[in-house]
């Protein structure tokens, strides 16, 4: 690949990427969330067309018209969300869409299935077993087998271990090595550095849509890679509003979920902004969602602003709201907002009783309260009775925040508060978060964008595979140190990446 560019509207996802992948090698592609890894692979697999640049495959120019053309040309993509039909059998899934028939009857190709499964080291898999009966690790094997039956020359794996247990991941590495032995080129996308150093031969680091470093894995180490993944200047987006932490508002002890988190404890005080950093799949969202009762906790204890301890397993959103906690969902569309309802209905939903008398809503009162919040947050709308979906992404996010402010909780759990919104709205939300902290609220911010956390938070903790680092003042962290813990679970408190501060 040479000089590949891709922009979505004003957002430049790829700004001229060069990448060379050879047959018989596993090429690790690493980078932070949003660095452009997935976009690059979508260009390769034909899902997106590049705006500029050229790609060659086996010496010939390669410009797939779509995913089907890419598959035909020999590029197989294995997505992080598995795309199998659970009710069909292993064989049916492997040949789905490419069935061969005789007089309209489907022909069995059990031998072909057995062959490809054996080549992956899984000859024990029954071609007739329904996919729903397989564990997630074996489903991935089926997915890879499906890709291999198209006889590809390049296999792309996008975060293949993100939903696997350690054991399944180990089995997957064996499969990847077999692919290399078959002289295939494997592009392995991951943000788990220890995986890359274990199974990849060559690495390329993407940052802000550019390939900033590449080389042989054998000649580098995890810490050096972490340094290459960050290395960005801090934006001037984070105005400091002075605020001083007060009494503890929320204390979480030994919180465990069904899978994630795996024993997490932290405390946040009034007037403090605590950031939780980490990579996708580390269990950050699961942690705040379990605190709020949106996901059932398996164990742990929560102590709210009232000073009363409750078992985390009994938490529900209603109880959390009564404890004066509130949560901003990372997923605005499916959870954060009722898009079809009016702006005012969304703003007042969690504290509607404030505008009622004997169960009857007082429309004038509700309307004025919604208008007050819209003015306070600078939400640009024609009328508060318009449906929430009629607003832009940034304004929708402010409506969701307006609901938290209207409810007036003491502890705000903000999950990806600036996801998918424009830069201007981001700056406004940062300013708002700081003002809220100055006003005495305790705030927990989960974000995948590290500079943002370093910019607005007072204290920061990092998560890696369900575990949390110590909570430290933000000045004690550097981007490199955060990235090292996020990607490897190693805390570099005493190693060479010490910050003087």
């Amino acid at each position, binding site marked *: 690949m040479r000089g590949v560019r891709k922009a979505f509207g004003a957002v430049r996802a790829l700004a001229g990427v060069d990448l060379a992948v050879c047959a018989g090698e596993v090429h690790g592609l690493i980078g932070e969330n949003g660095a452009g890894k997935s976009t690059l692979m979508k260009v390769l697999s034909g899902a997106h067309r590049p705006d500029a640049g050229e790609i060659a495959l086996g010496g010939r120019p390669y410009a797939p018209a779509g995913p089907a053309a890419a598959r035909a040309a020999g590029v197989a993509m294995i997505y992080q969300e598995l795309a199998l039909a659970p009710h069909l059998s292993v064989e049916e899934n492997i040949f789905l869409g490419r069935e061969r028939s005789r007089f309209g009857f489907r022909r069995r190709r059990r031998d072909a299935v057995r062959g490809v499964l054996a080549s992956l080291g899984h000859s024990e898999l029954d071609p007739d077993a329904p996919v729903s009966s397989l564990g997630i690790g074996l489903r991935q094997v089926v997915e890879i087998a499906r890709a291999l039956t198209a006889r590809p020359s390049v296999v792309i794996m996008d975060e293949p271990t993100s939903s696997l247990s350690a054991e399944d991941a180990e089995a997957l590495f064996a499969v990847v090595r077999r692919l290399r032995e078959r002289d295939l080129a494997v592009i392995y996308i991951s943000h788990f550095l220890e995986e890359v150093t274990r199974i990849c031969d060559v690495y390329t680091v993407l940052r802000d849509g550019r390939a900033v470093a590449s080389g042989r894995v054998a000649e580098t180490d995890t810490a050096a890679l972490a340094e290459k993944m960050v290395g960005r200047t801090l934006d001037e987006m984070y105005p400091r509003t002075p605020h001083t932490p007060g009494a503890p508002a929320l204390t979480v002890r030994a919180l465990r979920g069904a899978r994630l988190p795996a024993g997490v404890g932290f405390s946040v005080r009034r007037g403090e902004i605590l950031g939780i950093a980490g990579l996708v799949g580390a269990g950050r969202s699961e942690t705040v969602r379990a605190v709020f009762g949106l996901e059932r906790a398996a164990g742990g204890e929560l102590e709210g602003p009232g000073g009363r301890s409750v078992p985390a397993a009994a938490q529900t959103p209603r109880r959390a709201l009564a404890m004066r906690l509130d949560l901003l969902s990372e997923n605005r569309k*499916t959870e954060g907002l009722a898009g079809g309802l*009016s702006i005012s209905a969304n703003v007042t939903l*969690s504290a509607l009783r404030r505008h009622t008398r004997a*169960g*009857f809503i007082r429309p004038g009162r509700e309307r004025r309260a919604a208008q007050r919040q819209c003015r306070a947050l600078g939400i640009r709308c024609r009328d508060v*009775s318009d449906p929430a979906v009629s607003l832009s992404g940034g304004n929708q996010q402010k409506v969701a925040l307006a609901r938290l402010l209207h409810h007036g909780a003491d502890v705000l759990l903000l999950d990806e508060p600036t996801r998918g919104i424009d830069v201007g709205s981001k700056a406004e939300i940062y300013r708002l978060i700081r003002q809220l902290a100055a006003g005495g609220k305790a705030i927990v911010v989960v974000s995948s964008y590290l500079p943002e956390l370093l910019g607005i938070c007072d204290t920061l903790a990092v998560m890696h595979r369900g575990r949390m680092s110590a909570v430290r003042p933000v000045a004690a962290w550097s981007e490199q140190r955060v990235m090292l813990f996020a990607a490897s679970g190693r805390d570099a408190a005493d190693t060479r990446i010490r910050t003087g501060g």
Partner: protein
Amino acid sequence: MRPARQPAGRFRFFPFRLRGGLGPVIGLVFVVLLFAVLGPAPFSSLYNAKTIVTQTVIVGIGALGMTFVIVSGGIDLSVGSLVALSTVVTAVALNALTGSGGAAGPAAPLLAALAGIAVCAACGFLSGLITARLRVVSFIVTLGMMQIARGLAKWLGREQTVMTPVNWLQKAMLVDPEPGWLLLAPGVWLMLGLLALVAVVLKYTVFGRHVFAIGSNAQTARLCGVNVPGRRIAVFALGGAFAGMAGVMQYANLTVGDPTAAAGMELDVIAAVVIGGGSLSGGEGSAAGSIVGALIMAVLRNGCNMLGAPNYVQEILIGAIIVCAVLIDRLRNPRTV
């Protein structure tokens, strides 16, 4: 970055939402005008108008209950069976009350009707309980309830119609009511009263807001502390109670309890809600819209009869109207899939 400008003092009749409110009314005016032009003279008479309104009552009351269910994102297929069950329970209770005490007081029909409504509310409660607590989709639960309620009705009625002594309930659906100063049948007044009640509950109460929120996005509702299962159960119980009231009116119409009555009526009821702007994906619908939807279907049936058009023409027309109503709605808001 100016704050949102608000038109000061502008009177808004529907503070919640006006969108989609007018379409069904235009449809109703259109079909009325169509038959007034095409049809024979009797269509345009006052008596016929009263007939149409009276014919709307049973489906209309059922549709008001269904509006709660559909706005909350559910569906209730048991309405037709519940109507039949209600006629039978009402008739059986009436016979029990008059039979044992000898002369029936004026209270007996009322108690019998309440018994019919209560049984249907209980059935709805059960459907809601299973839907909300055990998380089985309402389509399946109420499909089962449809069979169960029909079976209960046949069991209670010993597989035949239940005759009852003459009583005032049987006059509730007369097109020319007694006494004459009522102008419209008592059943029509009941429907109008319930219409006002449901409209107010949906628009101006916390319960109504929660029903909309659950239908629009149940996850958001949960996030905001709404008791989603509790509200869902209440919604189905209400739907059952309304089906029970529709059943009492059906009893008034038939003057007997009939376990085979109202077969397939749930589809008319659902059609009324959908024609009236209800969305089967939840979060949309209104009481007035559902009544207008029921009226549109009653006008079509009546007008076709007056024209002497065969039954199948009505069926084709009503089918086309249902699809068109939803299609127009989709064209207006393409965002919903």
